[in-house]
């Protein structure tokens, strides 16, 4: 498949936006403005960008605490995400969610889930509703390598396969759980791909740092889902540039390994590819400048925004907008 240049530029733009956004989040954490925690996807942007580009309006993204990129690239406004990270009134969840729970239902970003594995059956359920209602939506569910060992993974994969649900399960295999390497806790080589046959599925492996490859793989899996042929389980090999969360220096990783992967930075690789494909360097510079400006703007706007109204504390437990449990 030949990917056209506008699409390629767009893939580049989205990766850069994600990169700058998360670098800023990290800086704000270090500055003490972002409380709580963050789990950055720095280095894993190609997975988010490739899938977001392949998805359509109406498709649904389910992701994890490491979900800033996925939510942003489905179209959630950057300032509202920044606001949520900083616990400000402009936060996309009114400050109630925080970094681990970014959600923008209007864009199909159906939530970031912070208990490992739980969102796999939820994503399958959304796909089931699409099947029952006869829409042509697909549901895409992102999770990590470590997630393949929890029960919910198994239950979700099995039922999705048996019911031929239009859901794409995407394992972002970044080789580590929090601090423990995935290789220490599985008896197979590929945590996701080697489990696919247990559900009658093909084990699909993709270079998660090659955004073109991710994009093409995503298109194929989404088309299969829409054809009613059932779920896919895709293992995207990737690596996080930083630690698991917050200020984790990730010392548990061999430096040779880190170096090797840093050379395979998906953004650097793609920049080189685009230049080799005769894209003007100025166009790329401009994309970068625009992305930086967007991040700066979101940061300024958010910093100038007050904390959420405390009245919000007691709203939205129930659909009536409130939290009353008694009459």
């Amino acid at each position, binding site marked *: 498949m030949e990917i056209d240049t506008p699409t390629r530029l767009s893939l580049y733009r989205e990766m850069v936006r994600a990169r700058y956004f998360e670098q800023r989040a990290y800086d704000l954490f270090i500055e003490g403005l972002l409380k709580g925690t963050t789990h950055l996807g720095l280095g894993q942007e190609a997975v988010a960008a490739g899938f977001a580009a392949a998805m359509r309006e109406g498709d*649904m993204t*389910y992701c994890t605490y490491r979900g800033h990129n996925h939510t942003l690239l489905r179209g959630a406004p950057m300032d509202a995400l920044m606001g949520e990270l900083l616990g400000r009134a402009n936060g*996309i*969840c*009114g400050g*109630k*969610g925080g970094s681990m*729970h970014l*959600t*923008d*239902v*209007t864009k199909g970003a*159906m*939530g970031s*889930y912070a*208990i490992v594995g*739980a*969102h*796999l*059956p*939820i*994503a*399958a*359920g*959304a*796909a*089931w*509703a*699409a099947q*029952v*209602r006869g829409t042509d*939506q697909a*549901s895409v569910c992102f999770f990590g390598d470590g997630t393949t060992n929890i*029960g*919910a993974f198994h*239950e*979700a994969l*099995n*039922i999705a396969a*048996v019911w031929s649900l239009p859901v794409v399960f995407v394992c972002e295999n970044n080789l580590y759980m929090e601090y423990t390497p995935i290789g220490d806790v599985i008896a197979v080589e590929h945590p996701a791909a080697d489990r696919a046959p247990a559900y009658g599925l093909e084990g699909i492996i993709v270079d998660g740092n090659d955004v073109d490859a991710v994009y093409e793989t995503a298109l194929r899996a989404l088309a299969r889902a829409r054809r009613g042929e059932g779920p896919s389980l895709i293992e995207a090999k990737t690596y996080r540039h930083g630690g698991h969360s917050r200020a984790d220096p990730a010392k548990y990783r061999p430096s040779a390994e880190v170096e090797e992967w840093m050379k395979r930075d998906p953004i650097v690789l793609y920049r080189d590819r685009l230049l080799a494909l005769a894209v003007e360097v100025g166009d790329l510079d401009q994309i970068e400048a625009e992305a930086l400006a967007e991040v700066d703007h979101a940061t300024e706007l958010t910093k100038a925004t007050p904390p959420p109204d405390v009245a*919000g504390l007691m*709203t*939205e*437990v*129930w*659909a009536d*907008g409130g*939290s*009353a*449990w*008694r*009459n």
Partner: protein
Amino acid sequence: MAELTYRDAVARGLAQEMERDERVVLIGEDVAKAGGVFKTTAGLLERFGPTRVRDTPISEEAITGMIMGAAMNGLRPVGELMFSDFLATCWDIVTNQIAKTRYMTNGQVELPLVIRTANGGGARFGGQHSQSLENWAMAVPGLKVVAPSSPADVVGLLAAAIRDPDPVVFFEHKMLFPIKGEVPDGELVDELGTARVLREGNDVTLVALARMVPMALEAAEALAAAGISVEVIDLRSLVPLDTRTLLGSVTKTSRLFTVEENPRLIGWGAEISSIVAEELFWDLDGPIVRITTPHIPLPAADELEDLAIPSVQRIVETVRRSAG
């Protein structure tokens, strides 16, 4: 007006809502072809077809996770957990996901779903198939909790639960399945969060839920003969909680007894007791007494199980001793 069993009332309530709203679907283990292991879903597959009534693998996290996802995408699903004890196998989905998602997304996500489950002891099934777990659900912000005691309430409250835009855990008591009661004809829709005074009285208030309700009524009858006038309240739902009816009754009687099937520690009676003891402190004529199963797992042998769960006799004796 027809006489229906509590068991058949479940199917009637489900059918009423499935007929009315095609977004209502039902999944669970053996709910379709077999009509449910308690036969509470008999006939629904035949009537509504395999897309809307579907058997699942033994995967409780998938059942509850799938209804959550489906509720996010336009359905109003009902999931059955065969026994309420199995809530424990999907407790993360129920408590951390279903209950919290609306709040954590500041209202972006609406979850109109119902988890139905067979609850309670008395069937000699032993410790892993007999628990009364309404208190577990009550402790989780974001869950509504319903436990009907009669066939008519089953139909009306199940309909209300299905129509409710929030997640509801609906406890069906397995010892009540065979009991019969009058159910009005036509569409029946009740209201969550409304307790019912089933018997008026002046001396003491007896608050009960599910299978403890018929027992409380029988005890009230026996106590009447002993000269104690008992008001019996069926709470029907724990969340929302009808404190108005409760406090109104205790204001009148000045004495409260709760009858709980769950093990003693932090049963729902403790919450009721703490509310009434705080808000009607100056009205109470004597201590609130909680009648509960002791704080033990349920044993299987009939003599032991009967002794564990509050009985009519135990209710009568406790009330007589404390309020006689």
